[in-house]
């Protein structure tokens, strides 16, 4: 494992960024008024909350080590699967007539 002061600082910063965005996304999942807006928050939880933490592990262990390579696999899986799942969930919610927030200004598929 590579370990120096610079690596430690980078790891700490990446973990802090990931934790901050995970917290904001969880609060968004609680507070948003609508299923569509909550889906958007869950996407943010993956791309800005989970990926910095996994990148922090890659930085900590090195990309060619056995830990870092598998963390990279998890990151790539999340990066590919999260938007696809969000799209499918939003589509199914729209097709099963889940009501929108009354303050929504536009319904593009119906127009």
């Amino acid at each position, binding site marked *: 494992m590579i370990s120096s002061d610079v690596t430690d600082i980078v790891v700490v910063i990446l973990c802090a960024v990931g934790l901050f965005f995970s917290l904001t996304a969880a609060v968004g999942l609680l507070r948003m008024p609508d299923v569509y807006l909550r889906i958007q928050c869950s996407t943010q939880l993956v791309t800005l909350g989970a990926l910095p933490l996994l990148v922090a592990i890659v930085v900590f262990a090195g990309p060619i080590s056995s830990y870092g390579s598998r963390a990279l696999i998890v990151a790539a899986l*999340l990066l590919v699967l999260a938007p696809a799942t969000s799209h499918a969930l939003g589509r199914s919610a729209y097709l*099963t007539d889940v009501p929108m927030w009354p303050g929504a200004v536009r319904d593009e598929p119906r127009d």
Partner: protein
Amino acid sequence: MDTWFTAVAIAEMAIAAILVVRLARGPSVGDRIVAVNAMCTQCAIVVVLFSVISGRLVSLDVAIWLASFSYLGALVWARYLERGLK
């Protein structure tokens, strides 16, 4: 560094505990699926951190499984909500 990773893992579990509220209250099925999916993501990250802390490489395979199959389950649920069991 292990102490820091332990603290981060505990904080992630606390964030996942916040999402239980949305899982219990969600008015539609979609809300609950989104909450479960987010919790599974958090759990996968905690498993990755745990494997780095404890030095067990086997746990990382659990994390890969958890990440991929939680999203696969959400995709299957979305398809089921749209078209039924066809």
